[in-house]
Each structure stands twice: as structure tokens, then as C-alpha cells.
């Protein structure tokens, strides 16, 4: 089981901030494929991965990152702090 979090417009498009999911995905990219296949709103949210950033266990990483042992995966747009 893994917590998947969404922020900013990804949260709005998918319609929820967080969900617990059961997945066999080995990498972030495989998880994204699983999510895309679920429903149209996920497919839309993940239609352009160049506009999506990912963190695994609160560390910024990339879509090739392995998910073994991961407890929390978060998807969000490029950050705009300051």
C-alpha cells in the first residue's frame, strides 16, 4: 500500500488530494501508466508529463525512480515559491 498525493492543478483535475493505492508498479513511470489507465481524469492530469514533477517519500526525483519500499509518492506541477 502506498499513499499517492496530488497538488495544485493535478489535485483539481484528479479531484482528490490523496489516496491509498495497491500497486505492483516498480517505477514512478509504471505507476503513472496504471493511474492513466484508471479513468479519464487521471489520463487528462497525466497527459503531459513535461508539466509534472514527482517526489518519492518527500524527495524530488524523476519518473525512472524505483518505488521499492516507497511509502508516499506525490505528483505536482513545477513549483512556484518565493
Amino acid at each position, binding site marked *: 500500500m502506498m499513499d499517492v498525493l496530488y497538488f495544485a492543478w493535478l489535485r483539481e483535475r484528479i479531484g482528490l488530494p490523496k489516496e491509498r493505492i495497491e500497486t505492483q508498479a516498480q517505477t514512478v513511470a509504471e505507476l503513472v501508466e496504471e493511474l492513466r489507465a484508471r479513468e479519464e481524469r487521471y489520463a487528462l492530469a497525466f497527459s503531459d508529463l513535461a508539466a509534472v514533477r514527482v517526489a518519492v517519500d518527500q524527495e524530488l526525483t524523476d519518473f525512472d525512480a524505483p518505488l521499492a519500499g516507497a511509502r508516499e509518492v506525490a505528483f505536482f506541477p513545477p*513549483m512556484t515559491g518565493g
Partner: protein
Amino acid sequence: MRIVVQEAPFDFGAECDRFAAGRGDIGAVVTFAGQVRGDGDLEVMEIEHYPGMTERALETIAREAQTRWSLGDVLVIHRYGPLRPGERIMMVATAAPHRRDAFEAAEFLMDYLKSRAPFWKKERGADGESWVAAKDEDEAALGRW
């Protein structure tokens, strides 16, 4: 080092006054505050963040600054939630024996927290609402460090 992420306003004057006060090893203090600029019809800037990761990311950035420059102290305060034009969003302060370290570290902190700390801004005005897009120049700014 002090990292604060909070919804409530902060007292910029009091923070500046307290920071590195009385420290005999410090010769330079640089402070920066960011505030909401009321562009166009902007009424409210809503700042979302990733609790937990935000603090970790800011600490990582501040620690990196401490390894690159000779710093006596670092302070970062960043707010989230709804903010109106003119309200302060965030501040950084750096203290160092010499001013160049304090200036450069403050700029480094600003450049990094803009695109490496998990904050997102949404603008609301009379014409509706929209997420602020990240700028290419913000990412490019990291290149100089």
C-alpha cells in the same frame, strides 16, 4: 538555522531585529522579504504547499547554502494560504562574518526556494482564477550556482 512554514503573518521588523542580534562573530546581515504584487485584477493569491516536504526541502536548501558560504545563521519564513496584495509572503535572512557571503547566500536561497521548494501559487481576481506557471528564467537562475 531556523525554518518556519506557517499560515499566519509574521512580524518582519521583529524577525530582522532578533536575527543574529548581539552576535560578535557576525559582521553582515542580509534580509529579503517577498510580498504579493497586485498585478492586474489580482484579489487573492492562494499558496498551497506540501506539508512535511516543504520543511525538508527548505532545510536542504539552507544546509547547502551553509556548505557553500561562511554563514553564522540562516532564517527562512514562508507562508501559505490566502494572501492579499501587499501582504508579505516570505522572508530570508543570512548572517555572515563578511557581507559577500551574506548577499550571495541570500540570493542562492531565493533562487532555490522559488523552484525547489514545494509551493504553488493560484491567483484569484474578478476574471476568475489560474495557477501561476513556473518561469523558464527561474529554472535558468539555478544555473549560475
